[in-house]
């Protein structure tokens, strides 16, 4: 059941990204180009997603287990630290460079976009590099 719901969630999430235009790097870059001809559409993606999300997370907060009886795992950290900010800076730079963030890149991979394959391989390599450095620090 856990696997079935996770698959359906991935599917709905991906369809949302396709419908919203978020899966198209050209549209993402049009949103990030404040000084050019700016396309504000992606503000609406965030508005719609956060609108539904805030209701769901407000409800989730009243529970300790999910509807399927799984433990509810919510992040507990509250401090804005250097790792968070440096990480967000690096991520934002990469996002602006290609117009891909992780979800849309995986969806574009499914659409058979060859350039998404390159991006996803590099992204997973970056994640693996991070894991290696972290493992060495511990």
């Amino acid at each position, binding site marked *: 059941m856990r696997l079935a*719901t996770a*698959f359906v*969630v*991935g*599917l*709905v*999430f*991906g*369809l*949302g990204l396709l419908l*919203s235009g*978020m*899966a198209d*790097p*050209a549209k993402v870059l*049009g949103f*990030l*180009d404040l000084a050019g*001809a700016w396309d504000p559409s992606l503000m609406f*993606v965030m508005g*719609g*997603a956060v*609108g539904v*999300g805030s209701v*769901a*997370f407000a409800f989730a907060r009243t529970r300790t*287990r999910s*509807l*399927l009886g*799984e433990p509810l795992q919510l*992040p507990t*950290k*509250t*401090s*804005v630290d250097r*790792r968070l*900010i440096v*990480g967000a*800076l*690096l*991520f934002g730079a*990469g*996002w602006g*460079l290609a*117009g891909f*963030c*992780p*979800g849309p890149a995986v969806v574009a991979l*499914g*659409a058979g976009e060859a*350039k*998404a394959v390159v*991006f996803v391989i*590099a992204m*997973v390599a*970056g*994640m693996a*590099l*991070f*894991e290696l450095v972290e493992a060495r620090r511990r």
Partner: protein
Amino acid sequence: MTIAWAAFTPWASLAGGLLVGVAAAMLILFNGRVAGISGIVGGLLRPARGDLGWRVAFVAGLVAAPLAWLAVAAAPRLHVAASVPALVAAGLLVGVGTRLGSGCTSGHGVCGISRGSRRSLAATATFMAAGFAVVFVARHLPGS
């Protein structure tokens, strides 16, 4: 600033955003997990017992989405202008950055802001500012 009215798709984007919100809602309410794509993919590299299956199923759903889309609609527009070296650099930056910063557009931008998390608000403001800056440099500085 000028608005690109021809490219502006408020209704489709709002509807797509609602679907993303529904997906995030389902994952927390059914599976008890936050829908952060970079965290879900990153967790595949550090597999813990009983924690692998749902991640694989979720990613499979994402990959299958374009196929489901094609069953009912015309092929979606996906235009990737970046060169291969730029894609490699961008992928590495996104991979390292999202793991170091504990999230991406979905985990921080959608789920974190929905939870009212101060960390996610700070991260979202930061990665958006970095994205704006990089696109400005790439498109509007002399010589670009």
